[in-house]
């Protein structure tokens, strides 16, 4: 038996290690280990004032900072019964779409993309395909700029606070996004054309798909917790359904619901909620051969392209809505008062369902914190899929085997330092 490994997998967020034990017979055992040093956020948030809890919470992740911020705010608002206005909700959704767009584009073009183009990094194409690189940069920047406009900054958002926003954008700073979002559709159309030419490995790994589900729209910012096993529950009861466990080879926890492994993220959302996508997003899915239910984890990237289109279309709708209604500048958040309680906030972060749960005392100091991260929930499923995929690669050289398995890890778009937190 031989052991081969990739020590620190590249083009993923954080530190993960891929190990394969190969028998002479060709059979192999694959293991993906999260070797990231834990940061112990759940400990360091204890005894912090709720305003600081939500400030620190976005620092779990540089890529999905808005998601962590929103989950923390929703958990805190739920614990303290703090209401938010319609305008606040619209602005949070806009920031959220901005983050999903920039995070997905980062993955589609910068992290996963080079696998399909056989290059070490996207910047390798600067001379041969400058327009492609510029398109990726433009789309990613648009997502960040949307966050900047409503939240002050993407990494890390400034203006989002419990109960609302500490800053309200001027109409004139939002208006340019009408054109920018409109023009982005052309770049996304080009992205669809590019990926129509790419042949992804054909792999079928049916599993349990978990996401939020909302009666009125494709769920990102809110909804109930839904499993493809046919169950819908309130996010406040997530602990009754989702169980975390520790595996000795990983500093990130694993999770189960109905099955020992399940999938969250773009493909799970697509499978669960595809009929709520915008018309252009649905048409892109059809063009890219993405049909629900889809069991191929390599199609996560495809589902992300489809979601980018949805995000841009719906952001445009929300920006127009804000501009038409007029932005109420007096809606700047003033001090909210603390109250004791426990609350859960769940959102669909770019990589899947994210839970934050906090208990506060009557002064608003955090008594306990629990964070359940999408990438951690995906780990069991990822390892199962890696094991399935290696079965098709029994004849491959060690290098090719590792490269192909690495590609599957990357397809999941893991956010590893986030998963350890």
């Amino acid at each position: 038996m031989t052991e081969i490994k990739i020590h620190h997998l590249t083009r993923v967020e954080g530190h993960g290690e891929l190990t394969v034990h190969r028998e002479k017979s060709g059979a192999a055992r694959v293991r993906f280990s999260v070797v990231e040093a834990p940061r112990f956020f759940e400990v360091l948030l204890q005894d912090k004032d709720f305003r600081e809890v939500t400030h620190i919470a976005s620092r779990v992740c540089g890529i999905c900072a808005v998601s962590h911020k929103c989950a923390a705010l929703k958990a805190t608002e739920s614990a303290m019964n703090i209401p938010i206005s319609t305008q606040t909700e619209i602005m949070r959704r806009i920031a959220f779409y901005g983050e999903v767009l920039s995070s997905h584009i980062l993955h589609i073009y910068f992290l996963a993309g080079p696998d399909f183009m056989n290059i070490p990094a996207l910047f390798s194409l600067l001379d041969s395909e400058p327009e492609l690189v510029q398109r990726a940069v433009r789309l990613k920047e648009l997502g960040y700029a949307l966050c900047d406009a409503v939240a002050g900054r993407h990494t890390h958002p400034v203006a989002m606070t419990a109960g609302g926003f500490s800053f309200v954008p001027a109409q004139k700073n939002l208006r340019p996004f009408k054109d920018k979002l409109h023009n982005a559709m052309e770049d996304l159309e080009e992205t669809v054309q590019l990926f129509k030419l790419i042949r992804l490995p054909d792999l079928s790994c049916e599993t349990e798909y978990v996401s939020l589900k909302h009666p009125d729209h494709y769920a990102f910012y809110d909804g109930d917790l839904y499993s493809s096993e046919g169950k819908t529950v309130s996010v406040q009861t997530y602990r009754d359904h989702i169980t975390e466990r520790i595996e000795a080879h990983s500093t990130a926890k694993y999770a189960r619901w109905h099955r020992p492994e399940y999938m969250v993220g773009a493909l799970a959302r697509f499978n669960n909620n595809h009929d709520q996508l915008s018309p252009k997003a649905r048409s892109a899915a059809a063009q890219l051969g993405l049909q629900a239910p889809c069991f191929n984890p390599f199609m996560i990237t495809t589902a992300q392209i489809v979601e980018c289109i949805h995000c841009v279309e719906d952001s445009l709708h929300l920006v127009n809505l804000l501009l038409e209604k007029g932005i109420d500048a007096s809606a700047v958040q003033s001090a909210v008062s603390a109250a004791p309680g426990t609350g859960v906030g769940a959102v669909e972060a770019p990589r899947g369902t994210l839970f934050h749960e906090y208990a506060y005392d009557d002064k608003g100091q955090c008594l306990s914190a629990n964070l359940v991260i999408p990438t951690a929930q995906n780990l069991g499923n990822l390892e199962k899929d890696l094991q399935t995929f290696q079965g098709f690669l029994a004849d491959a050289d060690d290098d090719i085997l590792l490269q192909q398995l690495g590609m599957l890890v990357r397809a999941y778009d893991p956010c590893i330092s986030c998963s350890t937190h």
Partner: protein
Amino acid sequence: MSFQFTNKPGIAFFDFACCEGCQLTVLRLNQTLIDLLAHIKIVAWREVMTSENSDYDIAFCEGSISSKSDLERIRQVRKQADIVAALGTCASIGCHNALKNKWTPDHMRASVYGDPHFPADVITPRPVAAVVPVDYHILGCPVSTPELVTVIKCMLTGQKHQRPNEPVCVECKRNDTLCVFEKGLVCMGPVTRCGCNAVCTSFGDACRGCRGLMEGANLQAAVQALTADNRHSIMMRCKKNYDLSENDIYEKFTLYNHNHTEDIKHDRDQDSSSHPG
């Protein structure tokens, strides 16, 4: 320190315990990053490229050192690189990672994993700058883009980077932003090194000190100004809004400056014990 490059220097990015948001800020330089590629070659950047190359001259290090394997890795990087830059507050002064220093690793492991010994490789977190000499400190959570570009220019032309040593208040005034204390919030701006263009206060928040204390900052005086009985009416409002004790205010000031505030607290406790009453 000065170092002149004759050829395009090789650049590498390394990350330790952090959110990788500072590397994303580098990637968000967009066209500027593309323009920079005329003057540098990026040889290792695990987050966005696959490369076997370890022939680098300049190492950007993000995050805090929080395991023994991190210690080995950062020492190796220091050995190889001519220039080491601490990219962001985690690497430079410890950021939120340092907040954990009031708990033991065993306590933290037991709380999060239910096992005081898992995972095995956990040490008390510390900034990169506490383990190896650092040539450039790029502060901020995350780093600020204009300063980042300035530091890179300094590196390439063999110059020192003169960190601004004024409080965030200077930038607030320049931006015509209403003083945070007027709103009854506790702000760390008066003792925090500027260079962020006061982004947090511009968007209605308070400064929480993510760029660290400026040299010579009198934190003790800042805390006393917020708690003394004869304080200014503006400060009274902070007290009224939040009912803060001196220790509460210290706690607020530890968010990004845990190590530094611990020193001061220690001195203060010593002072009060040697001068009773």
